[in-house]
């Protein structure tokens, strides 16, 4: 008997889930379903508002991280503005996670920086220094230098110095020494500058 070619069985393909289904799953009681849905919405522009609406209220850190990863990948003005508001959050986990996400958005965040540098809340400006520390953008160091030179709050200046630390060069010496002169009674700032210049 000759060989009979059996009909190839169709491969088991995972069932495609629509974007609408994924957005509905963002409200599923199971955090793992929400996490997978958030990651599955990568690249889905229509999901941005749904994710932004939920990121602050999400209490499972893994789901929140997934939402922020998906949002940051969009790197649009809408996402940047939606995440920047969380730099002022009372939730330490949220404001730190938002800062981390923003620091991976070099296309949209630069347009926000001038406003963030002028934010009346010095805690927001401290978080901005955290964002700029890791933002891969050619102007990041310039903005940090502006913070060191002009910001009226010593904690912001110290945070900006810390952020600038890996890139410090002799060209920054005068900038740092001037910062110490602006806050002569701040021992931490003096220590920071002395350590930076060492």
């Amino acid at each position, binding site marked *: 008997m000759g060989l009979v070619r059996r009909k190839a069985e169709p491969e088991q393909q995972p069932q495609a889930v629509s974007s609408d289904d994924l957005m509905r799953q963002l409200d599923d009681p199971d955090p793992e379903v929400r996490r997978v849905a958030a990651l599955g919405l990568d690249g889905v522009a229509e999901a941005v508002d749904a994710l932004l609406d939920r990121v602050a209220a999400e209490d499972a850190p893994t789901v929140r991280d997934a939402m922020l990863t998906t949002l940051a990948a969009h790197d649009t003005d809408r996402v940047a503005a939606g995440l920047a508001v969380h730099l002022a959050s*009372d939730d*330490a*986990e949220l*404001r*730190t996670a938002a*800062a*981390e996400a923003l620091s991976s958005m070099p296309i949209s965040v630069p347009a926000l920086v001038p406003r963030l540098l002028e934010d009346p809340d*010095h*805690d927001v400006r*401290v*978080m901005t220094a*955290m964002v700029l520390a890791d933002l891969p953008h050619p102007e990041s160091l310039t903005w940090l230098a502006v913070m060191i030179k002009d910001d009226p709050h*010593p*904690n912001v200046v*110290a*945070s900006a*110095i*810390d952020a600038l*630390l890996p890139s410090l060069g002799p060209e920054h010496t005068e900038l740092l020494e001037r910062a110490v002169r602006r806050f002569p009674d*701040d*021992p*931490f*700032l003096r*220590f*920071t500058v002395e*350590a*930076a210049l060492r």
Partner: protein
Amino acid sequence: MTQTQRKALVVDDAATVRMYHTTLLGDAGFEVQEAANGLEAVEAALATGFDLFVVDVNMPKMNGYTCVETLRSETVGTPAPVVMISTEDRPGDADRAYAAGANLYLVKPVAPERLVRIARLLTSGPGVAA
């Protein structure tokens, strides 16, 4: 009788802050280790007994509040005093720190002599480090 050297863990993602607090506590006679985030702090606390923790709030990987909660949880279970130091002076920050298990919440900048005085006061008992 010579007093055993107290061990402190300084936890902060900012290298300059770690250096500053390490220098202050080291000059005051503490043996100091450093951790750059809450996760590193928990790992260090599982490996070594500390008499004092100085912990920042905003840190990547694990923030200060979660770090302190973990230090106080059964996972680590340290009774050692925890001082949280942050740039944040929002309403509720101190309450959040105390709810997590901190003994004291201070807002930066903290005068050097104040930090040393507090560290000595909080570790003036028999000590808990292994």
